[in-house]
């Protein structure tokens, strides 16, 4: 019974949680905004007063800005493409009855539990190392010159590493979606004369629409801010500097908090632009 009394009691009891969450979110945001208008160089004099929009102008006009936005979008887009496509295929595969299904499913999910730093180091040293890496040995076995992955194909390498981490997530969600498909629908379409590929295109894929949307939205949130994979592999070199990484360099390597904070505000704007586009493109799938 929601009487006037119980409603106000509920508000009272919710208040601490709401205030805490609000504070958690608002304090860092306001501090970022505050510092972005400051000339603040911790090792070179500290707080040097207000800077107006100088930081914003400097951040955008820097030659590193647009390439970093581009790198961010390529990594996010590439990873999304790979995880969704292979997630659907792996989901279909794992949905087939087979021997050792339970073990295989756990193995498939395993990469998701490996910490980003660790998995990036494993990839860097065990697979992509131009001298001792597995890929180098493979290339040499076929008589080819080993590829120096992290410098010659840095973006591709990072996309590979990140996709490897996120593929299990996509596979898991898409597998459960595939399992919820009504078998009679597939049988009906089979009777209606649809061969395997058309059944996939007309029945399975539309059924997966909502799950794919969720995978894309959630992954985008996390992929826009990937950091560890770049930090331990290329260190932002060879065109693999994302917006997040650029901000890190501005704050910690150049010791310029004001400039980095301005970059942080741009990152928020970029994330919102991406979010608006995504909701326009795939958001309609979420309506029942």
């Amino acid at each position, binding site marked *: 019974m929601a009487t006037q009394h119980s409603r106000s009691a509920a508000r009272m009891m919710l208040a601490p949680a709401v205030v805490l969450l609000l504070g958690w979110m608002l304090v860092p945001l306001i501090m970022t905004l505050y510092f972005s208008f400051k000339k603040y160089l911790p090792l070179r004099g500290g707080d040097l007063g207000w800077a107006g929009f100088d930081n914003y102008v400097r951040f955008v006009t820097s030659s590193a800005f647009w390439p970093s936005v581009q790198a961010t979008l390529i990594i996010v887009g590439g990873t999304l493409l790979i995880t969704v496509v292979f997630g659907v295929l792996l989901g279909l595969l794992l949905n087939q009855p087979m021997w050792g299904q339970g073990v295989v499913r756990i193995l498939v999910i395993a990469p998701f539990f490996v910490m980003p730093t660790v998995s990036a180091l494993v990839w860097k040293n065990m697979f992509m190392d131009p001298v001792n890496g597995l890929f180098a040995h493979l290339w040499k076995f076929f008589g080819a010159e080993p590829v120096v992955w992290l410098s010659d194909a840095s973006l591709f390498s990072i996309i590979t590493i990140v996709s490897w981490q996120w593929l299990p997530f996509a596979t898991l969600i898409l597998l459960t979606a595939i399992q919820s498909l*009504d078998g*009679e*629908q597939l*049988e*009906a*379409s*089979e*009777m*209606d*004369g*649809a*061969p395997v590929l*058309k059944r996939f295109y*007309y*029945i399975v894929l*539309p*059924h997966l*629409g909502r799950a794919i949307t969720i995978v894309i939205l959630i992954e985008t949130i996390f992929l826009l801010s990937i950091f560890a994979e770049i930090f331990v592999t290329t260190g932002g070199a060879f065109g693999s500097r994302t917006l997040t990484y650029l901000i890190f360099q501005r704050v910690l390597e150049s010791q310029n908090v004001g400039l980095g904070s301005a970059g942080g505000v741009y990152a928020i704007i970029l994330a919102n632009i991406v979010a608006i586009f995504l909701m326009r493109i795939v958001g309609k799938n979420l309506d*029942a």
Partner: protein
Amino acid sequence: MGQIQLNQVTKSFGDVQVIPPLDLTIEDGEFTVFVGPSGCGKSTLLRLIAGLEDITSGHIAIDGADATNLPPAKRGLAMVFQSYALYPHMSVRKNIAFPMRMAKMPEDEQNRRIEAAAKALNLTDYLDRRPGQLSGGQRQRVAIGRAIVREPSAFLFDEPLSNLDAALRVGMRLEISEMHERLKATMIYVTHDQVEAMTMADKIVVLRAGFIEQVGSPLELYHKPRNTFVAGFIGSPKMNLIEGPEAQKHGVHTIGIRPEHVQVSKTEGTWKGTVGVAEHLGSDTYIHVHETGLGDLFTVRISGDIPVRHGDTIFLTPDMEQLHKFDENGLRLP
């Protein structure tokens, strides 16, 4: 056209044989109903005919041509599923058009058939809706529409009415019967509801554990059940089957008498019993009689109303003309 012939068809899942060797011919234009208790293999049999399950041995011929190894789409059959199996992301129009699109039929022919089907099934106003926005009965009609437009040689129905409420079920039953009269197409209909079987069928196939117990017209099954299983399954309420001394008086193992073939009196009759529950349907009254000394509960059906109370003593007289006799194997004696 649509004659379907099953020749020594069997089906096993692993070591379990669900359909023992089975022969059956379904004539062109016939409305055949497969009926039986759940798990008797009737749906499996339908899926074998549809091609959704592979048969283990034997042959299926459609219109005289061997179809044993044909994929479902090539058999020219259309199926209506229990869950309707409509495609939820497509409009009604696209659902109905789907089989024609897959067959790459010209657009204007598609539209002509959709309009015709929609008109026949009262779906014209709903063509642009999604299945999720339709009621159960409408979804059922869309599923039938999707089957009709292919102009199949036979329609297969897998318990199509079991998800509908009682009133709609009666309505749809009539519509499907009406459709059969109009199209003169072969139809195979699976149900566990003997009322649907009796009202719709030209030919009923009674199945038990994969075996065909009897094939015949509804009235044949009603008047001349071949064994006690068919006798008990066809007809509502169930036939009273009596074993023991009372049956031996007639020189047989079991006698059967339908509830509607028993006269009821308060003063005199062949058997005496105590009234249990009386179900008053208005037009009929079903009386469940206890303590008759004839074994199980005895049911009688009388037209109209009768003033009996729980616990009253009642006398029953069977109509000897309508007595069914069975031997110790449950088979009918003449």
